[in-house]
């Protein structure tokens, strides 16, 4: 009993140094050497400023931008440091969910009458930081963005196509569009103001 207690203490300390300190530091060194951009969060630099991360979504409300999905992360949405996390965690029969979706549906129907609204455009993601929307969700918004930017729908659609990722290796995951990268390119091609 006493022998095993002493081993427990020394084993805990020895393995803490190995697994809790050496292992993550070795991985950090290797990662910073081999994949520095990925290991530091794929930050996008533009004109000397950091304008976001390719992996972290941002909120968009201006009519000239493609909009992201609703987000429950922080007051404005898409806050990666929100203290209560980023998911709505609303259950399927919660009236708060149904009211929120109905409100968004009414707003979007006014914008694009007659079209059915892609489900990802009115549902929030689990992380609250989803950088993507579905190709259906960008198609729904092309008319609005083209009008606001004074571009032809065909030009905007071509831009969207360039930012549409298929399934990884042809079969993993789902097709998607990175909203921040698409909007950054829109600004480069035809600035809003």
């Amino acid at each position, binding site marked *: 009993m006493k022998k095993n207690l002493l081993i427990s203490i020394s084993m805990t300390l020895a393995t803490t140094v190995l697994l809790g300190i050496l292992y993550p530091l070795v991985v950090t060194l290797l990662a910073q050497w081999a994949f520095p951009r990925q290991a530091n969060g794929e930050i996008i630099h533009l004109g000397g400023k950091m304008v976001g991360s390719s992996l972290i979504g941002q909120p968009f409300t201006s009519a000239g931008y493609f909009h992201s999905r609703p987000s429950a992360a922080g007051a404005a949405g898409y806050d990666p440091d929100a203290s209560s996390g980023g998911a709505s965690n609303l259950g*399927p*029969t919660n009236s708060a969910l149904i009211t929120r979706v109905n409100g968004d549906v009414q707003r979007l129907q006014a914008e694009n009458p007659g079209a059915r609204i892609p489900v990802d455009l009115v549902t929030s993601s689990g992380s609250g930081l989803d950088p993507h929307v579905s190709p259906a969700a960008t198609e729904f918004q092309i008319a609005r963005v083209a009008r606001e930017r004074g571009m032809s729908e065909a030009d905007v659609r071509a831009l969207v196509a360039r930012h549409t990722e298929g399934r990884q290796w042809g079969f993993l995951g789902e097709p998607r569009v990175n909203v*921040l990268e698409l909007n950054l390119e829109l600004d480069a091609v035809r600035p809003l103001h």
Partner: protein
Amino acid sequence: MTANGWLQIFLFLLVTFALAKPAGLFMTRVFAREKTFLDPLLRPFERLLYKLTGVDEKREMRWTEYAIAMLLFSGVSMTLLYVIERVQQWLPWNPQKLAAVPTDLAFNTAASFTTNTNWQAYTPEVTMSYFTQMAGLAYHNFTSAAVGIAMAVAIIRGIARREQDTIGNFWVDLTRAILWVLLPVCLVVAMIFVSQGMIQNLRPYTTTQLLDAQTVTTTGTDGKTTTQVVKEQVIPQGPAASQEAIKIFGTNGGGFFYANSSHPYENPTPLTNFLQLVLIFAIPSGLTYTLGRMTGSQRHGWAVWGAMAALFLAAVVSVYSAESRGNPLLHGVDQRASGAQSGGNMEGKEVRFGIANTALYATVTTDASCGAVNGMHDSFTPLGGMIPLINIMLGEVVFGGVGSGLYGMIVFVILSVFIAGLMVGRTPEYLGKKIEAYDVKMAMLSVLIFPLVILTFTAISVVEKSFGTPSISNPGPHGLSQILYAYTSATGNNGSAFGGFNGNTLWYNTTIGFATLFGRFFAVIPILAIAGSLAKKKYVPESAGTFPVTTPLFTVLLVSVVLIVSALTFFPALSLGPILEHLMMHAGKVF
């Protein structure tokens, strides 16, 4: 449901099947102390560790000493984690200057990580320093998994050995599980994860500008409205990939970020998602092969694997079809799958994973006692959320946790041969060992702890109005599901949650902390007792009256026993929670 969705699901099962033999064979060699290709590299480390800690690697232990060593190690390392959480403000690698973790939350987290549960009542980004995540939480991801593997190996030895008093040396099994199995794979996997975009650094959080500044008007509790302009985004950083590798491979599930594997930094691409799924099942599936190999009955190992695979398939088909159908209460919304969207119930799910991968992940993570999530189970449809809950209620034996899945399933195997023995009126035998009253009593004890803890705590919490029900965030039958899920997840050492539920209160931190400890240790001690008892027994040759444990008939019996035990226990609670909610949802009722 789409053809591509099914393709991804069946490809995953195929890879799991293909990995079972190599993984199982490797673990057999590691724990039988035979030569492996890693020996030249790892033996010096192993010897050094024994020298530093005073372990005699030739010494064998009886089951009682094995259990005591395991409890002492768990107790000491749990205490260290508690202390680290309480003093993290004075420790290095805390660039955000995070304060000490409050006592009840620190206890809950320490218990939860020591037991391989990884229930998280905290938001890591604003609670845990990099040091606490690395040396406290990720550390326990390794050791709790290694302890689980050691327990599984001990009971396999108990079955395999004849007329012996001992079942191995806990310290040696622990060390070899860490050095040979967990650490090498994690080093490689962490680097693959980083290459896909998972972060790994020790930097302070990054502040970036928003492209489209947001004006937000909020109404405070005093009725005043305030308008603020949000121009920036603060993006948390940290050593995520190194923790993620062991979180998954050790079926731990505790996220580096609050959003767990739905967070783009914790699961950036469909490839990392697929790799995570494969790694969750790799050890539990491989251990069934180890069971067959070490006991000399390979077909028994596959019969157990078959029972697990059948239960897995039934669950994934159910979740995928429930989530694909979407939410009937949403009107004017297109929830059909097409080439341009995955459709279905997308609340709480990521576009890059869609319905198929989220349904698959939810099934895998609750079949194994992992608890990582890539979508929010709280926002699943009632039936889609019920299946993960049932998976945990089955006792975490469908592949199950690392080690704990196999030893949990062996309990059901013993019950199955006991029931078969009753039917034919003979003393039951299991792989040449007579199963007697003592063994069956211990097996029943291990099985009964589980519903006792879950249902008792749930019953108190759902009727208690001051500290019980206020934590519910979704009203109606869903509220019962939230509390039931919390205690089931804790006692099953899973760690996933119906995340809207507020577990960070004195009552829930304390009781959930104890539920994780009861679920782990009260269940495993009777199993070690069985290991000790079986090791002592004489070998009885197979006879015409022996019920074979290698046939499809046995697989069917095993599946039935697993289902019947949990159905009888939990059906009343399920009918008042998710089943009732499903019926009311289709009647158009909103809460």
